[in-house]
């Protein structure tokens, strides 16, 4: 069955640098991948979606790439700020179940 994997270790970076988070999937390419942000004690909030036939998507300081050869999506935050500190989750839609399957998330800590 499809698995979606994110680096469980926290990522610590300095303010102003680019943060890069990785999401790998194991089997077939999903039609699209989504990225969510989750703050402590809160529900996830949708950020970006990238489709299988798109190489790259941008929204303000956020950029997502989708590499079907590597079976990987990368999520970048440029000019990172302490307010970007949160856990970031990737997800794909299992169309047979209508439900999103999530990775375990990567915690990002941006140091001032």
């Amino acid at each position, binding site marked *: 069955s499809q698995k979606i994997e994110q680096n*469980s270790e926290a990522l610590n970076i300095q303010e102003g640098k680019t943060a890069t988070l990785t999401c790998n999937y194991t089997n077939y390419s999903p039609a*699209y991948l*989504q990225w969510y942000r989750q703050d402590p*004690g*809160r*529900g*996830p*909030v*949708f950020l970006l*979606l990238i489709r299988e036939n798109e190489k790259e998507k941008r929204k303000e300081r956020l950029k997502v790439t989708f590499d079907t050869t590597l079976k990987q999506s990368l999520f970048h935050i440029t000019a990172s700020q302490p307010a970007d500190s949160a856990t970031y*989750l990737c*997800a794909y*839609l299992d169309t047979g*179940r*209508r*439900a*999103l*399957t*999530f*990775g*375990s*998330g990567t915690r990002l800590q941006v140091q001032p």
Partner: protein
Amino acid sequence: DVKVTQSSRYLVKRTGEKVFLECVQDMDHENMFWYRQDPGLGLRLIYFSYDVKMKEKGDIPEGYSVSREKKERFSLILESASTNQTSMYLCATRLTGGTEAFFGQGTRLTVV
């Protein structure tokens, strides 16, 4: 603005109690989901519903049941609460044909 509301932010219950977690949405979405989130395990799907009175098991349905009598309300029931059900519970909705999921603020349940 889309709103998904869970009835409680924090709940403490005793082992063996029957527990009801309520979720209400105002978006007229057909699909509603219950996830639980535990450290290192990410979000795991418990049950979902794609229409009134319709429900399907997710990945970890044991010990839980659900009810959807009205389109806007989806309830998660712990028939006999146990300590291993201590977790963060997240309700989500999604429009059929849509992409992103909308989450409630979460209920932190502690079973003692």
